[in-house]
């Protein structure tokens, strides 16, 4: 419990700086933000109204306190395009991104655990070469390009799955799942590559340890030694890597959602950037980043279950 409290306290300065960075977004626009948002043809009156709307005439610390107060009350401002509350836009898009992220993470974990364990426990065999080769290729492929190739193969040529489009899960589950397969696998395969390499290397290290030799000498079967002993210890760095990967994964979904035209948070960021809707960009980026910070806390807490030495050693 003390570990959790300390970890949450350490998160506060990070969240503070994240909020400052997100807030500064509009103030950092080179030149007059109102002109950049409205375009050079806008009248002086319209620009002045925009400055008023964004509180740009107030001193920066006052603007920040006002903005932060709103954020803490769940008010992320209004879209500059159609005055819709930003929090509403985010809530509409969040389920799509959450579904995509969870699906991708599940695919990535499943592939990497199977490939990593097989590869390390059968080192030097064709299984190992195949899985390390695919993983090496996987980390070098831009996943949005993989998505485009999947569209060409599975949607255009074979006609098995739709190239784009989205139906909410509870409205039409079949259409939802078929629409999610290609984006989930395009991103998941790429993400699994790094985790496979990571798990293989940490498992190989464990398999060379004294306690593994002892377990073998006690007459335990290879399967028991690998699964019950070595994998359990190899999972500690693996969980760290998976946790760290979530930030990258959420960033990567921006492009996946664009390729497959999925109405998620990433697409909202890209569309809002195109429309110079900076309050929406601000709110969406803040939401994504806070989610990443909280997931990192969750991962840290998970370590303590996997390896209790972590909470004990950090307590000293």
């Amino acid at each position: 419990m003390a570990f959790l409290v300390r970890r949450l306290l350490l998160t506060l300065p990070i969240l503070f700086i994240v909020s400052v960075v997100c807030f500064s977004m509009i103030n950092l626009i080179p030149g007059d933000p109102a002109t950049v948002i409205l375009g050079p043809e806008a009248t002086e009156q319209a620009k002045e109204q925009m400055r008023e709307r964004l509180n740009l005439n107030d001193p920066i610390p006052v603007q920040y306190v006002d903005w932060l107060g709103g954020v803490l009350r769940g008010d992320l401002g209004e879209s500059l395009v159609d005055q819709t509350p930003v929090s509403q836009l985010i809530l509409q898009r969040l389920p799509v991104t959450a579904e995509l992220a969870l699906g991708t993470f599940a695919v990535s974990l499943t592939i990497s655990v199977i490939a990593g364990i097989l590869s390390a426990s059968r080192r030097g065999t064709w299984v190992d070469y195949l899985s390390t080769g695919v993983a090496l290729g996987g980390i070098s492929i831009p996943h949005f390009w993989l998505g485009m190739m999947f569209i060409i193969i599975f949607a255009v040529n074979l006609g098995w799955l739709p190239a784009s489009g989205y139906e909410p899960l509870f409205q039409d589950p079949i259409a939802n799942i078929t629409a999610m397969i290609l984006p989930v696998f395009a991103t998941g395969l790429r993400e699994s590559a790094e985790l496979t390499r990571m798990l293989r290397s940490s498992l190989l290290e464990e398999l060379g340890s004294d306690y593994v030799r002892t377990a073998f000498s006690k007459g335990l079967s290879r399967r028991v030694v690998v699964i019950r002993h070595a994998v359990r210890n190899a999972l500690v760095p693996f969980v760290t890597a998976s946790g760290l990967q979530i930030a990258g994964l959420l960033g990567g979904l921006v492009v996946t959602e664009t390729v497959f035209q999925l109405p998620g948070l990433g697409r909202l960021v890209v569309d809002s950037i195109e429309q110079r809707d900076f309050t929406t960009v601000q709110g969406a980026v803040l939401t994504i980043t806070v989610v990443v910070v909280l997931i990192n806390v969750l991962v840290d807490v998970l370590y303590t279950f996997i390896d209790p030495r972590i909470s004990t050693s950090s307590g000293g």
Partner: protein
Amino acid sequence: MSEAVTAEGSQTQAIQPRERRLAGFWRRFRRNKLAVFGLAIVAVLLLTALSAPLIAPSDPRAQDYALTLQPPGVGGLMGTDSLGSDVFSRVIYGARISLMSSLISVGLALLVGVPVGLTSGYFRGFWDEWIVMRVVDSLQAFPFLILALVIAAVLGGGLGYAMIAIGIGFVPAFVRITRAQVLSVRGRDYVDAARAIGTGHTSIMLRHVLPNSLPPLLVQTTLAMGYAIIAEATLSFLGLGAEPGEPSWGSMLFQAQAYLTSAWWMAFFPGMAIFFAVLGFNLLGDGVREALDPRTYD
């Protein structure tokens, strides 16, 4: 990424003459066939970028509306795009933009990240613990691509700003790696000895601490070069990097998106170019890391 190269390794290296160290490094590097393959890919990429005008059969920006969407073989080696431009020529010239943007963004990250990590790790204290590291932690909380996207959007888009955005996105990783290495080197005997004879802080940092902190930075730089190529392609794909008409691999994919059903080659070849370029840097980075790892020493 950098942990594989330990401080012991740095010290072992420090007491060997430079030539022997380099020869040893090269011998260990050569033993790794994949690393040599990676080096070959990077060398080909570099040569392609340098001699693009000699290799490309036509002007990558030339458009011929009579020859739009010609498949490979009919319209040149890799076909033509929706504007009638030769895809092969654009892929060849794309190597220039990718390598240049990768070099500039990683160079920028090194230029900012190394001095900050070096001074922060060397002097430590409140500034290091509560300002630099907290800012680094916070910046690393932003998904890299989203941070780069937002910076590019705020600055206004275009290849130049995309490079700056990618560079800024890399800074936290370089600060962290440099600082970690400096922390392990600053307590070494030769640093204490330099301090004891009255050498100034700047001189100690530049002549003793930094050179012995370089191995993990070299690995990180190589791997970052590959990632910068993907990042530039991604920003260009999202319309925040190179202009659509420019022969950049990312903007070629942006253009190809509307023709996935009719012209697969518009997306396939630039993507393969990105894949090989990134694979080359990844293999090279892995090879450098392995060759610098003291556990592989003879």
